[in-house]
């Protein structure tokens, strides 16, 4: 059963009481929150996700609550907790939904070392998975959002989960996080893009999340085979420029962008080496999204 077929009142009741169970990529989560911002964010962006059944094993239990005390009324705040553990300082309550996304990123990056996890957007076309590792400001999420609006499959806008057992990539399609001007750029680029609430003044500037394509969510269970690694860089006023990278330097660059390369030790090196050997690797600077799309589609 999908979240979108859950009546409004029932969704809110579950969030308040036993928790709302969701299948998110390979993970099962249960979310508790009495906050309206969270319920509305889920309705806008998580409609295509399936619910867990009562007997399912839950990987991660998370909650978003208002801290106790006077702050309930005066500049209200929100606290993210992971099964009772509070990893971050509270944020203004208006950022509660964004905090759910950030909190879940943190939980996965710290508790799923059965994967080599790379900080990257991951998309697929014609059965070839393309990994876009990104330092902040590289424009990976913008490029990713644009491509998935034009038919590419979204595997993740934040992390590539590479199975340490098989080397396959596990999809975790979730809302795509867009910042500042990117929000308007994507809205203008595609009429298919559905945005959640726009939140001002976060630590990352203005933030909004784009709903993941329904097809991508429905295909969450299908692992992908890696074939392409592209390091994107948004560069104003330039024609798209693709520069081939040697495998050795690509390996070092991907390792730098990994959340848990050092946790996995030798195994991490082996998995990464195996990944790189299956991929063509490039650095890519672009300005226009259309031209970028053409260049990348020509590679596949």
């Amino acid at each position, binding site marked *: 059963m999908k979240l979108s077929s859950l009546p409004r009142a029932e969704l809110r009741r579950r969030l308040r009481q036993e928790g709302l169970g969701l299948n998110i990529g390979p993970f099962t989560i249960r979310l508790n929150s009495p906050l309206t911002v969270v319920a509305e964010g889920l309705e806008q962006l998580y409609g295509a996700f399936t619910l867990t059944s009562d007997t399912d094993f839950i*990987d991660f239990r998370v909650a978003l609550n208002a801290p106790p005390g006077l702050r309930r009324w005066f500049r209200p705040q929100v606290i993210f907790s992971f099964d009772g553990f509070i990893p971050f300082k509270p944020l203004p309550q208006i950022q509660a939904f964004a905090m759910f996304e950030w909190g879940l990123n943190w939980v996965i990056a710290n508790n799923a070392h059965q994967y080599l996890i790379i900080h990257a957007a991951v998309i697929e076309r014609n059965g070839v998975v393309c990994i876009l590792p990104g330092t902040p400001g590289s424009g990976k999420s913008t490029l990713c959002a644009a491509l998935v609006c034009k038919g590419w499959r979204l595997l993740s806008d934040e992390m590539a989960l590479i199975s340490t057992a098989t080397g396959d990539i596990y999809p975790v399609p979730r809302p795509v996080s867009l910042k500042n001007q990117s929000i308007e750029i994507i809205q203008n680029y595609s009429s298919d893009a559905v945005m959640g609430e726009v939140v001002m003044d976060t630590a990352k500037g203005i933030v909004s999340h784009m709903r993941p394509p329904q097809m991508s969510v429905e295909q969450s269970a299908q692992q992908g085979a890696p074939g392409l690694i592209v390091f994107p860089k948004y560069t104003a006023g330039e024609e798209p420029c693709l520069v081939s990278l040697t495998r050795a330097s690509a390996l070092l660059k991907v390792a730098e962008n990994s959340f848990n390369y050092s*946790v996995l030790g030798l195994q991490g090196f082996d998995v990464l080496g195996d990944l790189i050997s299956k991929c063509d690797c490039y650095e890519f600077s672009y300005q226009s999204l259309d031209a970028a799309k053409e260049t990348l589609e020509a590679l596949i």
Partner: protein
Amino acid sequence: MPPESILLQFLSGSVEIELIDDPATCELLLRQARSANLLSRVAVLCAEKNLTPRLPQRMQNHLQSAQAVAMANHRSVKWETKQLERALAIGKIPFCLLKGGAYVVGRSVAAKGRVFSDVDILVPKERLDETERLLIESGWMCTNFDPYDQRYYRSWMHELPPLQHLKRGTTLDVHHAIIPPTARIKSDIDKFWECAHKVAKRELLYVPGDQDLILHSAVHLFCDGELENGLRDLSDLDLLLRDSSVSDDFWSGLLARAVVLNLQRPLFYALRYCHVLLQTPVPVQVLDVATQGSPGKWSVKWMDFLFCRALAPDHISCNDRWTGLARWILFVRSHWLRMPPLQLAQHLARKGYKRWKKRKASV
């Protein structure tokens, strides 16, 4: 009594089949173990019992993930040890690993799935200043420059203020004794050094003697008051005791050693709570002899009330309405044991005032 904990039952060796048959039980074990920092130990124990492949796939994933973290911890501590040896080689200062680091480098049974966030070492007191200077020269820096905290550590505590490595970010606690000099119990640190083993093929690196490993673990758990990892440390003791108890003269040796180091009280608590909470097979006669270290019948009842709560996993499913209070009282107790009353009053007043000032500044 607080609610029964599936994690305590698992560590005692009394649940196995339930985990295979019931995913809900398995999930509860995951949650309790994760919050007690014991998930990687559960992973190792499941693997040893050949239980892992029969568990739900999701549980297997979590166990695999936790084991990776423990292995990374172990690599890191071995590397840090090498760096320390290099730093201290200039002054030829011997150093002894304590707790987690000692379990890993000394290949103790308590290394199984042990995770830790800092490295603890012991150096001879007369070499303390020189140690600090050499460590600073090699990149370990003090992170807390508050003058009161500096004085607190340097004149009253058994360790320097924590050091952090500039590049690697690892935390190092440098001890010169196993108990603060201001504490009521006194233990002769020279006797501790006498029984330390030098690690094979290493110049300056020592680990505590086998009995002292247990006794220090007991002191740390029952006198230091940092109970966030209380159950993890109790499980260390349980593994150490189970492992050593196979040799005949182990128990008499341990009891005698506690007398030499004047640590009968912490040993009494260690044996009692290992036995009560984790079913550690401590012979009845040994428990009897250990009561020489008991604080008295009524005090023990009171301590049972506190420790049976505070040593349970720090998870919502294990708390009763007294748990929070019990942890707080034990925290206060650890300070009480550490300093004479007047000094404690000063310390608390000082800390309280600073907290109040900080809060005022942030509003």
